[in-house]
């Protein structure tokens, strides 16, 4: 039950309870007594507005739920507050509803808040909205006024029914009354009985959201909810975002039930898999041939639940199902309380079209809505070629990270190339040794090649020990500012312990000379644009950090809508 404040929502609700005979014994007497003591008229709204403050101020502060019955079926009625400052309470109520009543005061007509509520209803996916034009008694039951409001609201939404009512006098709620013979449509309860109850999402692709992992008598049980589709024992499942596959050995419930071989949308179950995979809270299981898209970038239609508008580059926490992750707003386009936000997730996320998303700032929900599109950073036509120059000791992880980043970007269709020190040494610089002069020459050649490739629109990742500040400065100048110095950080002891090519051992034994860190100095970067610490952090985190860094500087996000949603898997 939604609509602007003072349009009579709680009164209609109270009236519904009474007129359908859903009140318990003594409730009317109690209401009369309270109203008399308070010295006002009969306040039907007091049946719902239970707080003293609500009764004293004659407003609804928070959502409430009451039950009534018609001859056909039972209903839970969620009465929502109308005030702007209680909008999050209205929204909270709306997310639980299957259908809605939008109340409009006939005396005042459509208000801004009426439209806002209509937007919230549409956003949470409520398609059946019954419009109740209330207080018809106050406009002399005038048919023209009713029709004008009916025409106007039909521009904002497609109503399931539009009913003229008088809650005060109980007209067109359960009984027709005598003052609106011109209206031939259903009374409010008849309109309710005509609503269809939404079926669970059985025909949709399977989505099982992992809530937690339990260990029980040596069994490892993934507990969670089937959000849509059907999960069967024996199904091969894919777990996003990492993509591991595992077979459902059995569906775990208590007490044990060997007959339990499938679970439908809405069920809270546990599953036992045929192998141990890394799947934690937030993972989404699906069938491999109908998996959610994976993306770092998503676009969402968000209803704002705080006074301040969203701004770009704002850091928020997004929650989708059981998944919780940090996002940054890339862009925010808003009108009134509705915004279209493009968000960049810190980690790769499984995403479905129309998926529900709630945004939090400091533990407070500040926005909520649905996913409109996902996308990925790709080197689109307007992408800028740039040089990302890795420096660091031998064994720090330069080549490993460079190759992993290259693989990821190639997979997205980017023009990217890794210019690797070892490879250059074997080819173009085969004539050079390791004296300080030869090293400078090697870096000079690498700088020139990197700069030329970047100018042609390629993302260049140059991985060179490049021990001298002068050499790195030269590389920066060669790329004419399209240059970023990334320090791959690990100290000598760490690199020597790793020694992947056995070079440190050789250098210590004196078999090779002029080796950086042993008998040739490494000049620490003074102001690197990014530091990736592989000594204290792991390589995968480093890869992600570099990817983010490159995306933000050299790439543009491509966003796809519903039609191409699956194309970005």
């Amino acid at each position, binding site marked *: 039950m939604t609509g602007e404040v003072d349009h009579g929502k709680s009164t209609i609700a109270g009236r519904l309870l009474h007129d359908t005979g859903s009140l318990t014994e003594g409730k009317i007497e109690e209401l009369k007594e309270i109203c008399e003591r308070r010295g006002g008229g009969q306040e039907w709204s007091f049946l719902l507005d239970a707080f003293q403050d609500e009764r004293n101020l004659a407003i609804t502060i928070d959502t409430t739920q009451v039950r009534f019955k018609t001859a056909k079926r039972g209903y839970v009625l969620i009465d929502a507050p109308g005030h702007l400052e209680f909008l999050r309470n209205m929204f909270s109520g709306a997310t639980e509803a299957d259908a809605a009543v939008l109340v409009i005061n006939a005396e005042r007509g459509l208000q801004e808040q009426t439209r806002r509520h209509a937007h919230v209803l549409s956003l949470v996916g409520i398609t059946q909205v019954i419009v109740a034009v209330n207080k018809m008694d106050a406009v002399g039951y005038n048919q023209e006024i009713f029709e004008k409001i009916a025409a106007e609201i039909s521009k904002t939404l497609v109503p399931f029914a539009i009913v003229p009512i008088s809650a005060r006098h109980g007209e067109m709620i359960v009984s027709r009354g005598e003052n609106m013979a011109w209206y031939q449509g259903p009374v409010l309860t008849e309109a309710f009985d005509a609503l269809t109850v939404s079926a669970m999402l059985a025909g949709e692709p399977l989505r099982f959201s992992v809530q937690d992992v339990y260990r029980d008598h040596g069994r490892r049980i993934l507990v969670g*909810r089937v959000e849509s589709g059907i999960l069967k024992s024996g199904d091969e499942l894919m777990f996003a975002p990492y993509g591991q596959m595992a077979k459902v050995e059995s569906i775990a419930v208590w007490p044990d039930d060997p007959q339990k071989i499938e679970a439908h949308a809405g069920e809270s179950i546990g599953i036992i898999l045929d192998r141990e995979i890394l799947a934690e809270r937030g993972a989404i299981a699906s069938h491999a041939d109908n998996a959610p898209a994976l993306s770092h970038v998503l676009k969402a239609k968000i209803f704002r639940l705080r006074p301040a508008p969203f701004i770009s580059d704002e850091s928020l926490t997004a929650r989708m199902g059981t998944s919780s992750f940090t996002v940054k707003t890339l862009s925010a386009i808003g009108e009134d309380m509705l915004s279209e936000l493009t968000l960049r997730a810190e980690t790769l996320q499984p995403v479905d079209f129309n998926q529900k998303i709630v945004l939090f700032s400091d533990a407070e929900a500040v926005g909520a809505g649905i996913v409109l599109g996902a996308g990925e950073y790709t080197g689109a036509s307007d992408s800028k070629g740039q040089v990302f120059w890795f420096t660091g000791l031998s064994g720090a992880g330069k080549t490993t990270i460079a190759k992993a980043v290259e693989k990821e970007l190639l997979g997205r269709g980017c023009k990217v190339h890794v210019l690797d020190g070892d490879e250059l040494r074997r080819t173009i610089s085969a004539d050079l040794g390791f004296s300080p002069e030869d090293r400078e020459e090697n870096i000079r050649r690498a700088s020139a090649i990197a700069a030329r490739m970047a100018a042609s629109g390629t993302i260049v990742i140059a991985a060179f020990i490049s021990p001298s500040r002068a050499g790195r400065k030269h590389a920066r100048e060669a790329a004419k500012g399209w240059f970023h110095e990334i320090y791959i950080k690990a100290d000598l002891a760490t690199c020597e312990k790793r020694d992947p090519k056995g070079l440190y051992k050789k250098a210590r034994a004196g078999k090779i000379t002029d080796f950086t860190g042993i008998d040739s100095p490494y000049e620490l970067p003074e102001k690197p644009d990014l530091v990736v610490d592989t000594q204290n952090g792991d390589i995968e985190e480093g890869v992600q950090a570099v990817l983010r860094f490159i995306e933000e500087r050299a790439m543009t996000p491509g966003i796809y809508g519903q039609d191409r949603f699956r194309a970005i898997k």
Partner: protein
Amino acid sequence: MSDSLAGLEARSIYILREAYKSVRPLGMLWSMGKDSTALLWMVRKSFFGKVPFPVILLDTGMELPEVYEFRDRLIMDWKLECINHPCPPEEEMDQSLKPATRSAARKTEGLKTLLEQHQFKGIIVGIRRDEQGLRAKERVFSPRRADGSWNFKNQPAELWDQFQSEISPDAHMRIHPLLHWAEIDVWRYLKRENIPCVPLYFARNGMRYRSLGEHNITFPVASNAATLDEIIAELETTKISERAGRAMDRESEDSFELLRARGYM
């Protein structure tokens, strides 16, 4: 969902698992009444037969003997870790409260001393929206301030089962996994799942308890429903409110709000 009870149960299990994941240490109030016993059964379903946190009786010493017998039996049968926490005496309550309200306030104060002693961050409570107008306005995850009070004028948004689980220091979270159930649903569920309940609910000599509370402030109502089926049939048509036998609800217009604002369940 095959039927509506399965749907109600699935949502409660989801909430219980969310609570267990995000709020620790956790405890559950168990009054031995039909609601918290049905909920306890769902806890066992959620955690594959185990009850992974203590169940708590806020004991005023005023429960009926049948209730204590039932408690002792289930502790044995279901292997429960039960905290029997004594509530402070009535003399220590706010004397401005009316008698039954004052008596009920002992539970609130008992809960406060329990929280102090055991440092619980989350308390699971089996209240339902259809019981009472104020409970109808509750959230599933409902934060309480440091003094245990309910800031009902400023409740967090609760959207699509995204519950607020952050708790400020000294405060605690009430978790309400049964809010969406109705009285008749609970009885149908007790029957379907074959869950034991206190015999006082079944009519003897034309009277039965609809709602169980301490014997000084709760009274049986007229009824001939002596079996589960008869209770369900009675509830299908009754016009008597569930809490008709609860004295404190009637003492003044705001008695229940006074209790709840200060931290009552």
